[in-house]
């Protein structure tokens, strides 16, 4: 199997960057990283996860859809779309890798979201196995194996470097010009690394998290559960969980008048917001309890129901880490499951 020595990473990325823009996780402060455009010498973060997910590359927080200009009392329509440049995102973990499958189901099914499609077509996902999962990780609950992530090219990390496997045509094209930086090694090291990761996963506090109380068809059992009240009581209705989530895909469309033209853009929205999905008569979900319930019911019940049983959560644990009041999908699942067992 192909192997990239840790010491060669910079040269490898430098060469890759000649063919397309490369984004790599960079430490902003200890234990906090964000994706940055790679430039030769950029130190790549050793951290587990970026604060924001890789979703941002394909579904950015704000994006212009169309513009309007009034010229002599006539309206002219402006199309901001251009073919997106080729790029690759390096160091994507298994959880985020899976999230694209979920986003695709939303944006690439008819009617296709051409803005998202444009980015997906030009973006490669270079995934990496997890060597040091965090207590907040629970991807395994959704059948994700952090030791063998999806993606165009998989980097299986060991102490001194990465075993590299292209998984797609795009992946092979990406590696083709980079062969010189790779050496041949037997798979033993890779298997050990994978085994180590899987072993850790079993020791994690959330390892035993059960999903069997959830999934399509559970609406009736769960919708009116009394626990929603206490689970949601401390929720401050911010959008943190939503915006760090790799699978949340709700957006609002707004107009901005620049003085010379009106720009119609979309921006992330959160079902946790009181002004989410405003319609005649306001927000159909009147209380924070209902908004809170919506978010988890969507990930754990509605989404699977409409997508062949696939959950809308990948267990990346970002919301666990960032929720101001530490209420999260895990606590919701545990509480509701317990209740289930009692019933």
């Amino acid at each position, binding site marked *: 199997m192909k192997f990239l020595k840790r010491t060669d990473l910079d040269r490898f990325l430098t060469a890759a960057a000649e063919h397309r823009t490369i984004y790599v996780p960079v430490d902003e402060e200890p234990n906090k990283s964000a994706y940055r455009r790679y430039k030769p010498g950029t130190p790549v973060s050793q951290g587990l996860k970026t604060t924001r997910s890789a979703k941002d590359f394909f579904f950015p927080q704000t994006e212009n859809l169309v513009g309007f200009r009034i010229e002599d009392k006539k309206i002219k329509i402006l199309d901001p779309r251009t073919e997106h440049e080729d790029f690759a995102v390096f160091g994507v973990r298994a959880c985020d890798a899976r999230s694209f499958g979920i986003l695709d189901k939303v944006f690439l099914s008819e009617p296709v979201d051409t803005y998202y499609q444009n980015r997906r077509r030009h973006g490669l996902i270079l995934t990496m196995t997890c060597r040091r999962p965090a207590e907040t990780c629970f991807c395994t609950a959704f059948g994700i194996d952090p030791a063998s992530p999806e993606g165009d090219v998989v980097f299986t990390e060991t102490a001194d470097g990465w075993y590299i496997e292209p998984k797609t045509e795009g992946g092979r094209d990406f590696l083709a010009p980079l062969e010189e930086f790779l050496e041949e090694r037997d798979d033993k090291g890779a298997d050990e690394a994978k085994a180590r990761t899987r072993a850790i996963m079993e020791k994690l506090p959330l390892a035993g998290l059960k999903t069997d109380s959830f999934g399509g068809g559970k609406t009736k059992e769960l919708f009116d559960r009394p626990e929603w009240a206490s689970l949601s009581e401390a929720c*401050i209705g911010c959008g943190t969980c939503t915006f760090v989530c790799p699978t949340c895909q709700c957006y609002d469309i707004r107009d901005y008048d620049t003085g010379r033209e009106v720009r119609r853009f979309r921006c992330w929205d959160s079902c946790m917001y009181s002004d989410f999905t405003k319609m005649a008569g306001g927000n159909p979900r009147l209380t924070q309890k209902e908004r809170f319930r919506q978010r988890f019911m969507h990930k754990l019940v509605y989404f699977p129901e409409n997508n062949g049983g696939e959950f809308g959560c990948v267990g990346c644990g970002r919301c666990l880490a960032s929720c101001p009041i530490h209420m999260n999908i895990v606590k919701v699942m545990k509480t509701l499951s317990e209740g289930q067992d009692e019933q």
Partner: protein
Amino acid sequence: MQEMMKKRAKTLLADGTVSRVIGWRRGEFSYDVTPAVFETAEEIDRDFVFDAFCGANVSKYLIRESAKEDGRILAFLKPCDAFSFNQLLAEHRVRRENVYLIGIPCAGKADIDRIKKAGIDGVTGIAEDGEDFVVSTVYGDERVKQADVLAERCLACKSKRHPVYDELLGEEGEDLPDDVRFAGVAKLEAMTAEERFDFWRSELSKCIRCNACRNVCPACTCENCVFDNPASGISQKAAADPFEENMYHIIRAFHVAGRCTDCGECSRVCPEHIPLHLLNRKFIKDIDELYGTYRAGEDDGTKNPLTSYTEGDAEASVVRERGRA
């Protein structure tokens, strides 16, 4: 302390003084506690927790809870929470008669991010052991000095005193000097305009407009925030331009100027770790320097410096004259 609080809470529930208790519910990894309302002794015995990670300021929940018509609620307030509560009282946002306040001492709260910054990950539990925390992790146990992982806001604590309470548990503390508190602001003030601009650009450009800072802020209690209200002309759901990042944070800080009690919740909850308290504290420092020391929430009668004046106030030009450009 936790046991004293549980005991007192159960007594007050039992004798009918209060019908509900707001406190903190234990979490999965011991640091992830959640504010919660308890109604029975059983719930309290089972879930009530109070430790170094119970930092959330519960005073804002009392707007909602004190408006309810089912008896009084017991709230345990740290000094900074008590200042927030008092400010809410001054603005008629809470109904005092529906709240029973117990002031609890505070030695400062731990910041899990600082523990993780120390390179400790896979945290599964944290136990207090004298001066230290014993952190059990997936990768083995670690030990850190509690003092080394205090939250920034606690290192810059303004007071250990409760400006309002019905009863106190433990010793009442005193005000602390402001110099530590304003050091961060002073440091920025000493920079050149360019340096300050670059500093804030790099910080504010991280903002994802999750509104956590606003929604958690005990001074941000508007029925309808200008940023959610299309009629205001400045409503935004996301920062579509760097300007809007500035706009949001300047206006937010300005709206709480003279009302902010510096409880530090905004910085605590920011998922991007933007030092938002440096904006609020700038206003506090300016107000102290220009209009005399003023502490929001000190008492419920004082006039907010932005709704009062003296004829001899400094002119706006002081900004240009003072310090270096």
